[in-house]
């Protein structure tokens, strides 16, 4: 029997996603190297420590612009509604593999993650620019740079922890990676995890 599939992400959307993902990995590797002395050797991924330091902010800007495109693609799918609140309150059931609420295109967890990522990205860009040498930092007062470094490291670490959850969720819910690699999901996947979206996409009653 032929698999029944629904298109979830177009090719441009997938390319956009993976640009952000690759930039994020590079930023996390170099950033963690600056944050944790014991991981400083990770700067070797970029050739020399100096290169890692120089490259990091430029990759950051690329990632921010690519994420901005994603933000405008998806923000209107991510307004939190009553079904999402139900989902968030019953997150324990979800963890056990159960489904909660009449979930649309994204569930409460995904929406929360979307806003966490958006907030962190904005903070990272702003604080990153304030700390960016040799181009911008010299124009800011030192106390502001101190705050920027604290904000940058804090939001980076919040984002990294968030992305670990994001990646794990994709690995845990089988069939999800395919949505971002091939662009499609099965009917069964959609019906189980995003029933309202499934009905919208197929016109089926259930």
């Amino acid at each position, binding site marked *: 029997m032929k698999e029944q599939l629904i298109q979830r992400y177009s090719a441009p959307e997938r390319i956009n996603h993976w640009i952000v993902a690759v930039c994020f990995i590079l930023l996390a590797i170099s950033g963690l190297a600056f944050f944790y002395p014991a991981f400083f050797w990770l700067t070797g991924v970029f050739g020399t420590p100096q290169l890692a330091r120089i490259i990091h902010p430029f990759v950051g800007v690329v990632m921010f612009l690519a994420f901005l495109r994603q933000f405008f693609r998806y923000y209107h799918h991510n307004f939190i509604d009553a079904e999402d609140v139900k989902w968030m309150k019953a997150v324990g059931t979800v963890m056990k593999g159960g489904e909660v609420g009449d979930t649309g295109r994204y569930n409460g967890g995904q929406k929360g993650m979307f806003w966490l990522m958006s907030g962190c990205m904005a903070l990272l860009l702003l604080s990153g620019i304030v700390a960016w040498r*040799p181009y911008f930092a010299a124009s800011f007062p030192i106390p502001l740079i101190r705050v920027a470094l604290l904000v940058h490291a804090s939001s980076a670490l919040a984002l990294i922890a968030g992305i670990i959850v994001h990646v*794990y969720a994709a690995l845990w819910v*089988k069939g999800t990676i395919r949505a971002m690699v091939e662009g499609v999901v099965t009917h069964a996947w959609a019906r189980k995890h995003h029933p309202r979206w499934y009905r919208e996409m197929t016109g089926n009653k259930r």
Partner: protein
Amino acid sequence: MALQSLDILRRSATPTATPQVRNTVEVAKLIDVTTCIGCKACQVACSEWNELRAEVGTNIGVYDNPVDLSDQAWTVMRFNEVEENGKLEWLIRKDGCMHCADPGCLKACPSPGAIIQYKNGIVDFHEENCIGCGYCVSGCPFNVPRISKQDNKAYKCSLCSDRVAVGQEPACVKTCPTGAIQFGSKEDMKEVAATRITDLKKRGYDNAGLYDPAGVGGTHVMYVLHHADKAPLYSGLPQDPAISATVSLWKGLLKPVATLGIAAAGLFGFFHYITVGPNRADDEHAEDEKETVK
């Protein structure tokens, strides 16, 4: 510059211990602001010894020239005119790195071995390891390190660690014509200062005192001030300098919190997967089951 003839007490971004067994004497440079005549011989000596040439500046109406510290000017004289006790006073302070016992620059630096604190108290930048991030600038409570536009590396006074390593005093000390700058063990310098302060007090400077601020663990460059209670009179010398709370939070509490957060996310995922197991929807069997249940 790397000089292994001096024992290392601490290295930036290096959590493990350095060799500690040799008992090195702590040194200090004592700058007697009350004796300084502002001739700038020390500035010249510094530039000579360290082969630095600051750009010829312009007169900005006061004697300060160069106007500020830079990668090419590791010490500058700062001149300030104030009225104290009904008299005009010309306060001249030789500014530069204080060689803190608890150096904010070293605490902030992310690059292993870019900042070194020797056991004798000298804090030295090893530019070959510097990545040019400028964290030391944020870490320093005295606004001392400067990032060079030429090579994007951080520079500041080395207390002539190369000279001290071979038993000589720093170039500025050697040159000072009035003896306002002295160099020796920190203990001896405190004694010299105490004698001078007693003298100053006799002459009516009731608040004369030694500037060796405890907030940064004491310094290895100390000042004798006529008005130790009013340090900011000396061109903005901080009264109670300490590493900023923001920097302490960033380099302190944030690390364990971040480690816990990241580790918790990773471990949760791993144990969740091996206990609850994957969440499958796409095998037909499961779908049939669902249909019969409904």
